[in-house]
């Protein structure tokens, strides 16, 4: 008969022991990474620092279409 037993993993999290003789199942770790939303949505302007394209800006990086 298969049994499962809850026990603490290396970092204290609960893992489920599989059938006897098998390596206990450990959930995959969660990778956390920060996203700068303002940057990711291209809502920033280095020249002005205002978070947007300044009116009449002639810098090629900020406004190549001008």
């Amino acid at each position, binding site marked *: 008969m298969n049994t499962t037993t809850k026990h603490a993993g290396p970092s204290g999290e609960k893992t489920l022991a599989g059938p006897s003789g098998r390596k206990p199942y450990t959930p995959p770790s969660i990778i956390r990474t*920060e996203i700068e939303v303002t940057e990711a949505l*291209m*809502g*920033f302007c280095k020249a002005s620092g205002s*978070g947007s394209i300044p*009116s009449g800006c002639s810098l090629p990086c900020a406004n*190549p279409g001008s």
Partner: protein
Amino acid sequence: MRIRVGGLSFEIPDGAAALPPALVPWLDDNRDAPPTATCTLSAENPDDTGAVLFDPGHCWRVESAEEGLRIAVLSDVRTRTAFHTLTLDASLSKGTVHLHKEVLVDGEGPFLLRAPMLELWTSFLLMRGRGLLVHGLGVLHDGAVTIFAGKSGAGKSTLGHLFADAGKGHILSDDRLIVRQEEDGWRVFGTPWHGEAQFASPASGPLRAICFLRQAPTCGLVPLPAASAAARLFATCFLAGWPREEGLQSVLDICARVAARVPCAELSFTPDGRALETAGFP
């Protein structure tokens, strides 16, 4: 005229406007294949006033349009009411630009795809499964490109100057790169959208490796497992696209595929020549 950025070509009516000098290197004389997208200028304001679908609260937003969607870009940040518009069909292959009257002048008109319209259109196209727009410095050296990825302030332009001063490699951009899959693997393209060091080149090359930048007291290079690398790569991608869920899924998928195939590492560096040695450019 035709502009090609990251392998995506944009057909723009000849004589509609003078091409900004910053975009001249991206002029494309090749007419063998149809363009990815075609753009026209309309003097009329779009008459189908659409609902706002997504507003990131900055200089652009997405609105609905009769046959697709519309990207509205603030024409004046002071008022936050006047917008240039780029109306796109559902496939994003046909665009109609209407420029707000404040930029319209007699005689030669302004360039249609004013910033950041061309970049946004490129990003929207890429996020339909075509590739990534990555926040990074790209260095083409010995026939392949190393990406040094990181957000603003990570040191991309600083590192770009170090490469330029040392005469090592050709810099594709010190801020924004396009990564796309080709038959023989992943390829990195330079873009017109540069950083503070103003490196911008239309050149491209196969992707050799990705280093995620971290400023530190000492230099070091630590290989990253694929899952961590995929997450780090996602965090350095630009995510302007629509529909949002479809676009984010596309970026996630491509990040995972790139990270599974390309060596990735975290590069801790000091702003001097040791950084280049540590990254493998002695």
